C-alpha cells in the first residue's frame, strides 16, 4: 500500500512539472486531490489494511496529500505570476487614436421633421404628403386666396412655365404645405387628423435669415366639435414636449386667409426668459406657429359642411427649431451642405 502511495507522489510530481495551462492544472488537481483520486481511494480502503500497518499508511497518505496540495498551490501561484509577467509585456499605449470609424448623420432638418411628426403621431395625427409642384388652385384659390388677394403678396411665388392647349392652369412651386389640407379633405371624410411635412419655396433673395427653400410642417384636424380650445391644448402640449415643460405659450390673433379666427403662437424666449434679448428681438417672445380654425369657405370648397364640422390647422417652419435650439446664425448653412456644419448634429 505504501508503494502505491509513493508511486502516486512521484507520478504526480513528474506530471506537475510539465503542466503549462490552467486547464491542465485543474485536471491534475482532480486527478490527484479530487474525490475520485487514487489517494482518496487509498484512504478510503484503509480498513482493508492490517491494523499493524494502518496507522503508518494513514499517516503517510495524509502527509502526501498535504505535500501535493502545497505543490499545487505553489505551481498555481507560479503560473499566475507568469501570466502577469507575460501580460506586462503586452502593454500598449491606450491613448493612441482608435480606428477612424465614420458614422453618418441625419440632416438637422430631417431630424426636426421626425421629432415634430413623432410628437403629433403620438397624439393621433397621421402623416400625409403632397406634391412640391402644385396647381395655383391648391396653393392659393382653395385656401381662400383668389387671384389679386392681398395676402398673396406675402407669398413671393416661383411660377412654372406651363401652358395648356386650352387656356391656362397655372403651376407653381408650392409656397407652403397648406395645399395638403385641401388634397386631404378632398380625399377623406372627417374625422381627419393629419400632419404633413415638406419642402416649400419662395422667390426670395437669400441672406442669413432668408432662404428660398425651406421646410414646413402642416397639421390639421377636422371633425364635429373641434374648437380653438382643442387647438390651444394640442399646441401647448406640443410646445412643451419640443421645448421643455417650463415653456410658456402666447396665443394672439393673427391673420391667414384660410383660417378664421386666426392665431399666432409664440413661446417665451428661452435665452432671456422673457426679459428681451437679441434672439427674441427684445420682445421676450419667439413666434413659432401660425394657426387657426379652418375657414368655413375652405371647408365648403372641399365638400365639408361647416355647419356640421369644424377644424383647426396649424403650420410651422422647421428650420427654425434647430436654429433656435443650436443657436445657428445663418439659415443658408442648412442647404449648402458643408460637412463641417452637418457633422455637428
Amino acid at each position, binding site marked *: 500500500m505504501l508503494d502505491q502511495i509513493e508511486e502516486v507522489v512521484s507520478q504526480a510530481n513528474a506530471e506537475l512539472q510539465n503542466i503549462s495551462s490552467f486547464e491542465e492544472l485543474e485536471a491534475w488537481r482532480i486527478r490527484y486531490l479530487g474525490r475520485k483520486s487514487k489517494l482518496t481511494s487509498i484512504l478510503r480502503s484503509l480498513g482493508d489494511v492490517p491494523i499493524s500497518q494502518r496507522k503508518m499508511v494513514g499517516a503517510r497518505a495524509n502527509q502526501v496529500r498535504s505535500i501535493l496540495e502545497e505543490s499545487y498551490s505553489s505551481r498555481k501561484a507560479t503560473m499566475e505570476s507568469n501570466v502577469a509577467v507575460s501580460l506586462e509585456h503586452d502593454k500598449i499605449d491606450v491613448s493612441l487614436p482608435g480606428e*477612424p470609424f*465614420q*458614422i*453618418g*448623420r*441625419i*440632416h438637422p432638418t*430631417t431630424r426636426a421633421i421626425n421629432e415634430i411628426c413623432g410628437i403629433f403621431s403620438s397624439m393621433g395625427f*397621421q*402623416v400625409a*404628403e403632397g*406634391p*412640391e*409642384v402644385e*396647381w395655383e388652385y391648391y396653393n392659393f384659390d382653395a385656401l381662400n386666396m383668389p387671384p*389679386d388677394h*392681398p*395676402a398673396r403678396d*406675402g407669398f413671393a411665388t*416661383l*411660377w*412654372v*412655365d*406651363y401652358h395648356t392647349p386650352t387656356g391656362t392652369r397655372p403651376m407653381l412651386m408650392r409656397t407652403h404645405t397648406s395645399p395638403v389640407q385641401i388634397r386631404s379633405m378632398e380625399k*377623406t371624410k*372627417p374625422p*381627419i*387628423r*393629419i400632419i404633413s*411635412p415638406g*419642402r416649400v419655396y419662395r*422667390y426670395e*433673395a437669400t441672406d442669413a435669415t432668408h432662404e*428660398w*427653400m425651406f421646410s414646413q410642417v402642416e397639421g390639421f384636424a377636422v*371633425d*364635429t*366639435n*373641434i*374648437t380653438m*380650445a*382643442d387647438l*390651444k*391644448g394640442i399646441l401647448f*402640449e406640443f410646445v412643451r414636449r419640443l421645448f421643455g415643460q417650463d415653456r410658456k405659450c*402666447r*396665443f394672439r*390673433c393673427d*391673420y391667414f386667409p384660410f383660417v*378664421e*379666427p386666426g392665431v399666432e403662437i409664440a413661446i417665451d424666449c428661452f435665452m432671456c426668459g422673457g426679459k428681451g434679448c437679441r434672439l427674441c428681438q427684445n420682445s421676450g417672445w419667439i413666434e413659432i406657429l401660425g394657426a387657426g380654425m379652418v*375657414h368655413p369657405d375652405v371647408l365648403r370648397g372641399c365638400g365639408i359642411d361647416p355647419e356640421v364640422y*369644424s377644424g383647426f390647422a396649424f403650420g410651422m417652419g422647421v428650420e427654425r427649431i434647430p436654429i433656435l435650439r443650436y443657436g445657428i446664425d445663418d439659415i443658408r448653412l*442648412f*442647404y449648402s*451642405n*458643408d*460637412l*463641417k456644419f*452637418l457633422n455637428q448634429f
Partner: protein
Amino acid sequence: MKVPLSWLKEYVDVDTSSEELAQKLTSAGLEVADIKVTGGSWDKIYIGQVLAVNPHPNADRLSLATVDLGTRQLTVVCGAPNLTTGDKVAFALTGATLVNGHTGKVEELKPARIRGVTSEGMICSEKELGIADNHEGILVLPQEYEIGKLLSDYLGDVIFDIEVTPNRADCLSVMGIAREIAALTGKPFKMPDLSYQESEKTVESMVSVEIQAPDLCPRYCATAIEDIKLGPSPKWMQDRLIACGMRPIVNIVDVTNYVMLEFGQPLHSFDYSQIKGKKIIVRRASEGETMYTLDEQERKFTSDILLIADAERPVAVAGIMGGLATEVRDYTRTILLESANFSQAAIHKGALALKLSSEASSRYEKGLNPELTYYAAKRATQLMARLGAGTVAKGIVDCYPGRTEKRPVSIARRDVKRLLGLDLSLTEIEKCLRSLGLECEKPETGVIYAFKPWWRNDINCTADLVEEVARVTGYDNIPLSMLSSSLPTGQGSRLFAFRQQLREVMVAMGFQEIITYPLTSLEVLKKLSAKSEIDGVAPLKLENSMSRELEYLRNNIRMGVLSVMARNQRNREIHIRLFEISKVFIPRTRDLPKESEILCGLIDSVVPDIYWQVKPKPADFYFAKGVVQALLARCGIYADYLPGEDMSLNPSRSADIIYNKMKIGVVGEIHPRVLANFDISEKAFMFELDVDKLFTIAGKQPVYKAVPRYPSLARDIALLVDAEVTYDKIVTALKKFNIISEVRLFDLYEGKQVPEGKKSMAFRLIYQAGDRTLKDEEVDGIQKQILAFLSKEFGATLRS
C-alpha cells in the same frame, strides 16, 4: 403703420401704460413691433435756422451751412440737396445720440473734419432722428418752431410701430387703431366733427361724375375748393405728419396726406381748371392709350388699367398715381378733391402692370370699404376750410353704383362655443361686438344679427364675428382642452416611415444625409452626361427664375450630390460618403410633373493617409454595390446587377439594378468626363435607387424560415473557367442544388498561374440539410454531381 400716442388720444382716452396698450393690441392681432419714445435721447438736439448756405471749398456736392441756435451760430458741413436758407432744422450738437443714416446703428455724434472743414454738429434727417426711414435730405421743420428750443419740446412723443395684417386696411389709420384701443380698453371712441361752411356755388354745377366701370369703381366722391391759397400747414398738422414719417409740403397736399393717415382713405387733388368738359369719367383705358404721370413718365396703358378721365383724356391712373397735366401747381385757383373707392383687384393688376406702386395703391390693394370715401371727403374738405386754404363749394358729388344692401351676419351662443370652446352669454357676445362699432339686432331669441360698421371690410361670415369676440375677450381667456373627437382610421402614408428606415440604414453605413436645391440650370444638367446632353425629356422651366443658375426643375438629384462632393473636397474633406433622398420632377403633358423620390449615394475614393495603423482600402465599385446590397437586403429585396448604360457612369464599371425585370436603380463608377465636369479630383462611385419602386416591392413582410437544427458542412472548391463566365452564372447554377445553402466567393485570380483566357474562382460551399446531419460521403457524392454539371455548363474544371 407708425402711430403717435398723442394723435390717438384725440379719439380715445388712454390711461394705460404704453407697454400694456401694446400688449393688448398685439394680442388682438395688431402686432406692435416697436414702441419708440421719440425725444427721449434728443437732449442735444435743438431747433436751428439756416442762416446761410455756402459751397464747400473742397467738395462739389457738399455745402457749408451756418445755423443759428439763438445763443450762437455754428457752421456744419452738409450734403443734403434740400438745404435752404431760412429753413428751420433739427440741429444735433456733437455728443448727441443719433441713428447712423447708412448703417442704422445708434451712435454718438463725434466732432468731424470733412474735407478740411470742421463740422460743429449735424443737420438731421428723419432717419437720423429715428422718426422714419427717410434719409433723402434733411427734415425741414415748421416755421413756428422757436430757435434754440429743444426738438423734444415739439416732437417728443410715443410712437407705436404697428404691423397691420392684410385684412385690416382700416387699421392703416390712426382712427382705426384708436377704435381698436377703445374696444380693448372699454373706452368710448370720439368721432371728430366733420361739419364746415360752404359757399353758394354747388359742386354739381362744376363737375359731373360718370362711372363707366362700376365693377372696378364702386363709389366716387368729389368736392371742390375755390380761391386756393397755398401755404404751409399749421404746426399741429406738420407735427403729426412728421411723427408718422411724412414730410409736410404745402397745405392742400398735407391735408390729403393727413386724412389718409387719419381715416385710411387715399385722396387726390386735381387742378380743376385742367379738367376738360367739367366731367370726370371713371373708365378702363383703351388699348395703347398714354398719359404722363406725376413722376413725369409717359405711361402706356392696356385695357386692364382703370383710368380717371375728363371729357377728352385720362387725368389719373385710378388709385395709383395722378396725371401731370392736372397736377396742382402754384397758379392753381380751384381744386377738385377726389375720394374714391376702387376694387382691390383692379388696383393690384394696375400697379403690377405699370410696375408702379404708391402709398395709395398699397391701401387700395388691401381693400377699403366704399363707405369710407364720403367721410374722408368731408374731413379733407373741412380741413381745407379750417386751414384757410380756400372756399368750399356746396355739397359733395357722390356717385355710388356699388352700393350694397346692409347685410347682417348672424351669431349665436352656440357658434362661439363651437369654434372657440368658450361659453359666453349672448349679452357678453353683443357687448364685444358693440364695442367694435358693430350694430346689433336681436330679431329673435338666441341670435344676434350684426352689421359691420362702415370702416370695416373684413366681417362677412359668422366665423369673422367669432374672431371679433375672441379678440375682445382675449385669446388668453380661451380654455385649453385636448382633442376629444374620435381617432381617424388609417389615412397616413407609410412611405414616410419607409423613407426614414432607408435613411437609418444609410446612416448606419456611414453616410451623411444632405439636402440639395431642386432648381438648377441646363449647363449643370449637361455636365452630368459624358456627351454633354440633356437626358430624357426637357426639364420644366420656371417662368420667373431668381437667377440663371436656378432656372430649371431638376430631373435627377445626382447633380446636387456631385456638387456637394466637389464643394466639400475643396474644403479638404476626404472619405466622403453622402446620400440624399429627394424628389425629381419629370414633366407630363396636361398634368403636374411626376414627382419621383430618388435615393442617391455618392462615395469618394480618397482615404485618410495619416492613420498610424494599416490604411483603409479606397472604395471601389464593389464597395458601392455592397452598400446597395445591404440597403436592399434590409428591405428584403435581392436584385440582379446587369451591365448598364448610364449617362454619368463609366460604361465598363456600372450596372443596372434589376428586380423582377424592373429597373430600380443604377450603381457604378462616375464617368471620368463627368468627374472632370464637376471638378471632382479622384474616382467616385454612385448609386441611385427609385424609392417609390423600392417601397412597392418592400411592402411584403419577410416570411419566417426555420433556423437550421442540424450542423452544416463546408467545402472549398477552386474552379478554372473561361474569363467571360460571370460570377453570377456560376452562383445561379450552384443555387440549383437545394442542398447548398450558401455560396461564398473567396478568391478570384487571373494571371500567370492560370492558362490564358481562363480565370480561377474559389468558392466555399455550405451544405445544409433540414432533416439530418450530413455525412462526408454524402456531400462528396453531391459535389461530384455539381462539378460534372458545372463542367457541362461552363466547361469548368477543378483547379489543382
